[in-house]
């Protein structure tokens, strides 16, 4: 660990802190339909969209109608992407002449992008045409992010309104989110990325002659190994920068190339790397301020921000420490071989030398705290404890800032639980910002937690004892368990990153991960929307000295404890058999 590394982490958090309020205020104004500086340009466009689609701007929706609209919109979008993938061969903007995508992979990808997961069981540059990337995947990067944010805004309205039956209009929230929140910054960020060297074109791949031919060993179908000399390389390219910006800003994470943000065309410089990290947390962090502002209790927004920042720092500290410490067996081996001492640089396996350990550990923590899933290093190659951090981050429900929208509403479920469990201890029926937390709210909150842990634990359990599951594992022992666990955790959490060793492009994994993604998105969002609907209908009890406070360090502590105990205890047994055991075995001299 170096001062430079710590500086990067500290500076990053400061930038996020600085963004929180201005962007939070802006979003509150956008969704309250107050005036913003973009109105002169965007208002006419918005009106045009409503006129064309027949949306009644002032019509409000009950939570059930809102949920139905979300499902309908997502369902239709999902089908469109599936169709596009299945017929891309016959459509334009396919200079490489890529074929149609296989049904199970097309299904998996359609679900993956609709649910803001961006789990990629395919290699993009050899699977998806430019049209599919732009009109299919990038479209979903915008749409799924907007759906998440709209859901969070509906939930915030549920908390702030009183004796109201409605939560706003989904179509209006969706449109305003796209026009005001997502498009302008994505446009600007794409240009900045281009300035750093990210590519943006529609050209066919370029074949270049290698300066230094490489000799590689290839195992043929007959099992014989032959030696080949590679003299040429085909360089994949395409409309990358435009997709890259929303990939981060909408916490989508699906790379334009297989190497994702480790690819120099996606993430060329340390500055672009920093910008990408900032884009990931920008909206999730700002939404805490939007929550505080729209509920007229800024202190609550900051308390939630504080809990998120604390958990973020815990995660990044462990990841950075574990990666900087590296693998003890390497040092031992170099001693035993009496070779020149290996410089103690930590664990560089699977990391980009351009970014190094601190920026990789930081990126891995951020991308899994949020539901982004973009990677600039291979999580599979992290040390056991370093790799456990991304895993736990997702298991907690991606509420440490979290996915755009989904992070906040997931956090609100934990707020409800914390308020309910500890709120009784002040001698009143638990109240969250004046709203009584009653049986229905607790039921929905528990359902949320239950769906998450059920999906992860049940699918993983089946996969570790059945042949079709075990087939995907590329490392034996506890690391293999981590791979499977990570896959279902990532899918359920709508993260999309992977312990990339796993071979997940199989019928079982494509279909079951698809189901996990759908459960993790909609079966978790609907209970939260139900809580919002129930809270909106309630009366507000005015605050008094006897009221449970949802702000200040005490509440932040309580919230963190609830997240750690309720959120992670469920996973502790399996974690102790996977990364924890792997870590202990590594120090006992055994690796996988």
């Amino acid at each position, binding site marked *: 660990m170096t001062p430079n590394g710590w500086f990067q982490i500290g500076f990053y958090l400061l930038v996020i802190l600085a963004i929180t309020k201005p962007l939070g205020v802006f979003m509150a104004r956008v969704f309250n339909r107050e005036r913003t500086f973009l109105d002169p340009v965007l208002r006419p466009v918005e009106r045009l969209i409503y006129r064309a689609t027949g949306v009644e701007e002032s019509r409000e929706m009950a939570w059930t109608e809102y949920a139905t609209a979300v499902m309908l919109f997502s369902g239709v979008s999902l089908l469109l992407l599936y169709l596009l993938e299945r017929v891309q061969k016959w459509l334009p903007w396919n200079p490489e002449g890529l074929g149609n995508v296989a049904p199970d992979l097309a299904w998996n990808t359609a679900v993956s992008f609709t649910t803001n997961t961006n789990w990629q069981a395919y290699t993009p540059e050899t699977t998806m045409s430019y049209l599919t990337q732009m009109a299919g995947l990038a479209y979903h990067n915008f749409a799924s992010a907007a759906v998440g944010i709209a859901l969070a805004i509906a939930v915030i309205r549920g908390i702030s309104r009183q004796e109201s039956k409605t939560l706003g209009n989904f179509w209006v929230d969706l449109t305003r989110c796209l026009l005001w929140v997502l498009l302008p910054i994505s446009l600007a960020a794409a240009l900045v990325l281009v300035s750093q060297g990210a590519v943006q074109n529609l050209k066919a791949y370029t074949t270049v002659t290698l300066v230094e031919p490489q000799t590689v060993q290839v195992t043929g179908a007959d099992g014989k190994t032959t030696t080949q000399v590679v003299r040429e390389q085909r360089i994949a390219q395409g409309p990358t920068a435009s997709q890259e910006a929303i990939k981060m800003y909408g916490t989508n994470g699906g790379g334009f190339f297989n190497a994702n943000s480790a690819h120099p065309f996606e993430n060329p410089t340390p500055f672009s790397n920093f910008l990408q990290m900032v884009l990931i947390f920008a909206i999730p962090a700002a939404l805490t301020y939007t929550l505080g502002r729209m509920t007229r209790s800024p202190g609550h927004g900051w308390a939630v921000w504080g809990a998120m920042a604390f958990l973020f720092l815990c995660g990044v500290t462990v990841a950075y420490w574990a990666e900087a410490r590296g693998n003890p067996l390497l040092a031992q081996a170099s001693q035993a071989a009496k070779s020149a001492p290996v410089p103690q640089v930590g664990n560089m396996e699977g990391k980009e030398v351009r970014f190094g350990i601190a920026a990789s550990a930081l990126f891995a923590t951020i991308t899994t705290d949020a539901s982004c899933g973009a990677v600039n290093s291979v999580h599979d190659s992290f040390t056991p404890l370093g790799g456990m951090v991304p895993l736990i981050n997702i298991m907690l429900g991606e509420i440490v800032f979290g996915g755009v929208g989904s992070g906040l509403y997931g956090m609100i479920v934990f707020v409800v639980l914390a308020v309910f469990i*500890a709120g009784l201890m002040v*001698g009143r*029926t638990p109240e969250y910002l004046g709203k009584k937390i009653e049986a229905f709210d607790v039921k929905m909150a528990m359902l949320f937690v*239950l769906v998450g842990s059920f999906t992860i634990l*049940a699918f993983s359990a089946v996969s570790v004892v059945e042949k079709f599951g075990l087939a995907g594992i590329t490392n034996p022992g506890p690391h293999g368990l981590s791979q499977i666990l990570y896959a279902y955790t990532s899918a359920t959490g709508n993260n999309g990153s992977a312990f990339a060793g796993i071979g997940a492009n199989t019928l079982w994994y494509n279909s079951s991960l698809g189901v996990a993604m759908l459960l993790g998105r909609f079966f978790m969002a609907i209970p939260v929307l139900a809580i919002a609907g129930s809270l909106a209908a309630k009366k507000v009890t005015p605050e008094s000295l006897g009221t449970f406070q949802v702000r200040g360090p005490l509440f932040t502590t*309580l919230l963190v404890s609830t997240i750690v105990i309720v959120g992670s*205890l469920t996973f502790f047994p*399996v974690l102790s058999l996977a990364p924890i055991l792997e870590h202990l075995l590594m120090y006992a001299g055994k690796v996988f």
Partner: protein
Amino acid sequence: MSGSTHVKAKALGDTKILQGAIRDSFRKLDPRTMVKNPVMFVVEVGALVTTLQWARDLTQHASGTGFGLQISLWLWFTVLFANFAEAMAEGRGKAQADTLRKARTETSARRLKKDGCAETVPSSALRAGDLVMVAAGEFIPGDGEVVVGVASVDESAITGESAPVIREAGGDRSAVTGGTRVLSDEIQVCITSNPGETFLDRMIKLVEGAARQKTPNEIALNILLAGLTIIFLLAVVTLQPYAVYSGAPQNVFVLVSLLVCLIPTTIGGLLSAIGIAGMDRMIQKNVIAMSGRAVEAAGDVDVLLLDKTGTITLGNREATRLHPAPGVNESELANAAQLASLADETPEGRSIVVLVKEKYGLRGRELAAMNPTFVPFSAQTRMSGVDLDGQEIRKGATDAIAKYVATHGAAVPQETKEIVQAIAGAGGTPLLVARNRRVLGAIQLEDIVKGGLRERFDHLRAMGIRTVMITGDNPLTAAAIARQAGLDDFLAEAKPEDKMALIRSEQTKGKLVAMTGDGTNDAPALAQADVGVAMNTGTQAAKEAGNMVDLDSNPTKLIEIVEIGKQLLITRGALTTFSVANDVAKYFAIIPAMFAAAFPQLNVLNVMHLRTPQSAILSAVIFNALIIIALIPLALRGVRYRPVGAAALLRRNLLIYGVGGVVAPFIGIKLIDVLVSFLRWA
């Protein structure tokens, strides 16, 4: 209130209750009863599964059956301990119900037939609407209203108060309760309830817990606990495949032990005991809550409406000082004031006589010689007084006397006017005394605020509860009393409908309102209030409208009721937090024990250094069972409520039950492990 402890707390160690509770804890093992408590039901199923497995191992002569037996036994103990907690809570109620039942013994009643003759029927034959005669020495056969007559009644069977009370037809003192005894005179009572529905019956059901329904918070908490149970069930069920994958499959004893340790058995086992004990504490305070919901609502109360008279002040106003007008001798004023009040039987009038006697040494005189003519108070003149020996002495309200003297062209002296204003400004009531239409001076009447109230209202304020006084006085007087007693607000010149309007307006602001009342005209407001406490001395209508009855008829009881409500909620929250926090230590006990055989490296997680894997698991299970027993006294007594504001209270309770809940099992399990190893159990 030493007389009111009839339905007194039975000591925890009362052997009779203890025996009954032990019997009941076995009776409650019936799965049909257990299923109502999902957490403990899972434990029971777990115990059954391990017992069957142990029996199978035994028949197959497997080794290590001792461990299986011990785990099974402790799991059964866990269920029994939880049942015992509930049975203990119910047992105390049952003992009280038995005492009450004695008062309900069959009596005979003299029912009036249509022709006016009385017939003797058993009290169980009485229906609502029947008229009965009750004479001195007889028991009142059922709840009802006195329609004719007045009698003194011994209500100690219900209230524990041994002093007899007066019950009379009409007005607010007409309600009588079945099972009480008439001491003097004869009354005619109209029965108002059918057999089985009387106040006494309801009270018996309530203290027994038979009529107990789950309260809203309890239902929500049960959902949380059931949800946690399902999640942990999932975690344990899926652990086996992971264990199989890792090459370390687990036996059923270990898996069930892990499950039982993780699910919130502590709160699950004590939850219903806490609720019953809360009702019980109300009863110990001589308050009968008609539902657990009302007790819980009491904890949520934001506004207390308190009647001034009897609650904040001692009954009536008393004369405290005389202020002579300029040029009038103080004893002259005293003399006139006394004469004017001698025939005045109102409490104010009597207090003037008392003041003059004590302060000026003037004793009552034989007036007959002076040929007095008393002028009683009338609504028109708003004065009273006496005419004797050609003197015309009057006392009355300031404006009434001013008008009276003005008819003779006299006026109230400026100094006296100022004094009058000063008295009113300080919350007192001024009266003027005039002789022969000349103002002699003023009498200062004051409300006497009950002692110790200010501190109690300060407590309430710290709880976040606003106190509002309701009075018929003018705003000036009301403000002064409110200030003196330390109240937050007041409603002056209040009519019954104003009370109702105030409750409604507070409720639309989202606040919960509590009030006390006794009169029939209080009934609508009592029904509207979220917590309506009717006085036992009050009318039947008031008692039915409210959701609590205070047998002591003490209006300040409301404060204790609120505290009990809060205590109930705090106890639930504290034990839930404790129970959930406990899980951390149990993981560190059981997980290394499960896998240490296959992966000795995992022993670094055995931070408690428990001796053997079996001892570790057994110790965790034993701790889990014993903690229920250890917390029964706390569940029954309730966590103490401190009026220090929500933030301080939360900090304190989080420290004790949250942090304590994390730390305690580490120590407890370690100690049990030492003991288990010492006894060679495992």
